[in-house]
């Protein structure tokens, strides 16, 4: 019973956070709603007994991605946080229709065929045994190549981001006071 209540509360937090994130006119409010969404999702991961993933979710998304987006907003948009005048794009009507139809397509399989509902208790013990240590061992033994490629990707992204954001020749620009 407790689990069901927790699920509904967390699901509500996630959905409302996501909706606010894409609907808010003020970008900074949007980012903080997005962080609420990430936190709700981390709670759902905890409910699914994947505690390490929940930690990584908070560490990477709430800690790093949120701050990165805030930085980008500060560097590009109006710092004072004035609300944008027009926020929806020209094709927003068609966008809504496409999103709704994709939702129906995703929903159909779950509604149509009702397979036997998996009993969560049959694998609960095994799920609980999968600790951080087991995850780490898996990362080192069969998936070490993936891990290395990922490290390479992150390094490349770091260098790429610096190069892209730096622009042409910053030394040549001159700031004049008027």
């Amino acid at each position, binding site marked *: 019973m407790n689990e069901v209540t927790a699920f509904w509360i967390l699901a509500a937090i996630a959905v409302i956070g996501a909706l606010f994130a894409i609907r808010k006119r003020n970008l900074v409010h949007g980012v*903080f709603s997005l962080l609420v969404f990430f936190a709700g999702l981390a709670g759902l991961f905890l409910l699914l007994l994947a505690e390490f993933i929940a*930690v990584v979710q*908070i*560490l990477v998304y709430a800690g*790093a991605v949120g701050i990165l987006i805030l930085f980008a907003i500060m560097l590009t948009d109006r710092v*004072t*946080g004035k609300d944008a005048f027009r926020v929806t794009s020209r094709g927003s009507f068609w966008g809504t229709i496409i999103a709704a139809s994709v939702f129906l397509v995703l929903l159909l399989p779950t509604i149509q065929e009702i397979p036997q509902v998996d009993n969560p208790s049959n694998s609960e013990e095994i799920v609980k045994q999968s600790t*951080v*240590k087991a995850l780490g061992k898996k990362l080192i033994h069969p998936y070490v190549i993936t891990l290395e490629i990922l490290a390479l990707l992150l390094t490349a992204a770091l260098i790429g981001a610096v190069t892209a954001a730096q622009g042409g020749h910053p030394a040549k620009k001159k700031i004049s006071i008027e």
Partner: protein
Amino acid sequence: MNWELIKDILLATVPLLVIFPTMFALTTWVERKALARIQNRIGPNKVGVPMSRYGGKLSLFGLGQPAADGIKMLFKENIVPTGADRLFHLLAPILSLIPAMLVLCFLPLNFPWLTDEQNSVKAFMLDGAVIFFFAITGLNTLAVFMAGWASRNKYSLLGGMRAIAQMVSYEIPLVLSAVVVVMTVGSLNAGEIAKSQDGWNWFVFSPWGLAAFIIFFIASLAETNRSPFDLPEAESEIIAGYFTEYSGFKFALFFLGEYIAMFAISGLAVTLFLGAGDGPGAEAYPSLKVIWFLAKICVLIGIMIWLRGTLPRLRVDQLMSFAWKFLMPLSILNIFITGFAWHAENNNEEYGFTIKAIIWTASLLILYLTAKGLDKVNRANIKPRTYQYGE
């Protein structure tokens, strides 16, 4: 309802809510006293217990000062600027206090009234306690930014941006130096890390542990915005930084949050490097462990106060280059050294005193020389300050 669980939770958390705010009150007094002595002043010495009915009063070296400050904070007017974002202005101090309080639960404090099983609340005995600690302290950055942005004041915003840049940069050496301990123990569980250091087997007593501890301590100073890294609230440059527009109770919450975060991160340093509750007599009387743990936290706080009285504030460019060009390479090198030493110790049958001595001397030398070299290279690159908008 599961009353047993609720009892356990209360037994483990209520002491935290009593001990740490009390320590906060005492620390503010100690800090003011110590800073005053360093600057050749006397500091608060008047407030005590008023006993005028019996003639005179009990001043107690001004120990009543925290209470007086608290009452003053509570009764001050709460001002919100006209242009401010009211909701965020209210939420920011709360958001800065909650993560700081929450991470206290992860510290292996070993209260004597809890059995070994319940060591801390079960829900907090996570496998990934250490990484959870870092994840949640990272949320503090958001609170600081929220405060700076919601105040709609240029100085506040500058303070918030400085805080973000600084905290994000210093989180890297902080986590990398904790990795050293996690690698050696092979667990992210705070209780196991504490247990592995029993019997004077502290991590600070090894070359790599010492280096990691120093890096961790410096980075934790920056994470909690302590001097000499208190640029986000540098009063001579940007008034009071992100809490310029805060007064009354909200300011008190910020203040409390900052100090609790200091205790929490010192507690993590004690857990990781200084043997947690280990100390003389801790094995014979396990209830002494709490005392030792808190005493070690107090020593670290004392060092922080001492540094605040001694060192001048850094410049922004110095701050950044110190994190990225000095602390980060050093902590990465430290991880390699730890890996090598661990491998030599555990996968080598001839491991004895001689090999140990050689490895220890070599790693000490390598770390020292690298630090020296990095320092020299960095010093050559630091140029005098250039002014863009003034002479």
